[in-house]
């Protein structure tokens, strides 16, 4: 379980990225932080593995304050998947995946073997093992990123817009794979995105973050969709006037008559 207790983050220039936010992400669930760019959701995520230190408040993992843990050890115990994969360009696929186990002192041979196994787990052909990141497609790179995040078998996985830079078809594919993996592995996942559709697809729980790092609403996708608390959430969910849809023959159209979907 990850718990944010009254965390704030302000920068020297006076901008307030997060203000007095409290939040709990339950174990073995996917908690999605969703909000527009610059709302502080990535800052929140990075507080968990101490890439960012809160100005005030605490972040606890299973009731232990992360501030009391050695940052390097802490990071090795938490999986991190970032946008644009963040793969090391001078390491092959298999060595990128094996990064954390090797940092932890796992013998090279064993770490690589496990990395190849993980490639299959995330749906990558093992023949890509010796390739460098630039020799892979965007979708393959993100799969490598996910495999790397899982390599040390962490309880917690932090995912920072991991599927933001791939095309919609690949994204949908990666989302399905993530759900399949989660079914098997049951990690505690904190997932950041600006895409509400992605949040609804993936989240056991969704936290809508408004500008200035304040929680607008949180709950299951169904709860939020059924009872948006204010105009901001309504607009963010696309449930405002401009999206009040109606049926026209087989098509679903918006108020200006543009088709947005088809009846099943």
């Amino acid at each position: 379980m990850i718990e944010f207790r009254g965390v704030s983050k302000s920068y020297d220039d006076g901008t307030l990225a997060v203000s007095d936010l409290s939040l709990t992400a339950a174990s073995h669930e996917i908690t999605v932080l969703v909000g527009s760019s610059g709302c502080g959701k990535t800052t929140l995520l990075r507080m968990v593995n101490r890439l960012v230190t809160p100005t005030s408040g605490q972040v606890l993992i299973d009731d232990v304050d992360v501030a009391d843990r050695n940052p390097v050890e802490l990071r090795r115990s938490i999986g991190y998947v970032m946008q644009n994969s963040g793969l090391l360009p001078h390491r092959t696929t298999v060595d990128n995946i094996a990064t954390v186990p090797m940092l932890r002192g796992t013998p090279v041979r064993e770490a690589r073997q496990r990395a190849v196994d993980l490639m299959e787990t995330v749906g990558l052909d093992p023949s890509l093992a010796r390739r460098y990141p630039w020799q892979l497609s965007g979708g393959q790179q993100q799969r490598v990123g996910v495999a790397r995040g899982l390599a040390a078998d962490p309880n917690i996985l932090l995912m920072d817009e991991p599927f933001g830079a791939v095309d919609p078809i690949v994204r949908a594919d990666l989302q399905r794979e993530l759900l399949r993996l989660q079914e098997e592995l049951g990690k505690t996942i904190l997932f950041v995105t600006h895409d509400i559709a992605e949040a609804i697809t993936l989240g056991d729980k969704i936290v809508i973050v408004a500008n200035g790092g304040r929680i607008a609403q949180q709950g299951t996708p169904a709860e939020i969709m059924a009872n948006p608390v204010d105009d901001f959430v309504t607009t963010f969910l696309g449930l405002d006037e401009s999206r009040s849809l109606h049926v026209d023959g087989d098509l679903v159209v918006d108020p200006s008559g543009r088709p947005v979907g088809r009846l099943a």
Partner: protein
Amino acid sequence: MKWILNNVGTITDATWAHLWLALPAIVLSFALAIPIAWVASRFRRSRFTLLLVAGLIYAIPSLPLFIVLPLILGTSVRSLINVVAALGLYGVALMVRYAADALDAVSNDALLAATAMGYGAWRRFFGVQLPLAGPALLAGLRVVAVSTVSLVPVSALLGVNSLGMLLTDGFQRGIFAEVLSGIGATVVVAVAVDLGLVALGQLLMPWERLALRRGARHSTAEDKRVVAA
């Protein structure tokens, strides 16, 4: 031509002496420039001062430096240490800027990812930042190497053996072929050292070699057609 054939031994000796001065100076330049560049790139405020000092050192005329340096080092003017130290000083002065730029240019994404994976500061520097700065460091080092090789002959004015001796001796005795062979051999040494560095780079940075061969680094085929058009 006849002079060259009659003096192959002299030229070979001078070439080895030349290398023996240039190579340690090049290694010294690189080894010293990296920590200075690290400071310059890590602590932004020191950057301006460090690069300014490096620039000023490079502006010192070489002959006076060869003569003044022994007073500081306590060596004799003709000592090899004196010559290597002077050459190394110029090399560092030149290399620091290249190295600072090379370290700065490493993608933030890669560094952030390394930190997030749990790399400690030292390990991140030697395992990620330095190798990724490799290609740019190599480019700088090649300039430093060629510049060092062509600076060595100045030390002949002090009486230290190198290919420069062929120049001073040739001038004094009016042997044109000797002067020419000194110049030619210096160029050959410079090219050889340069090729050696390129080969070393390919050995140490296999990911770069592959990228260059495929020529597909950051651009798609479409990008290339657009650029070509």
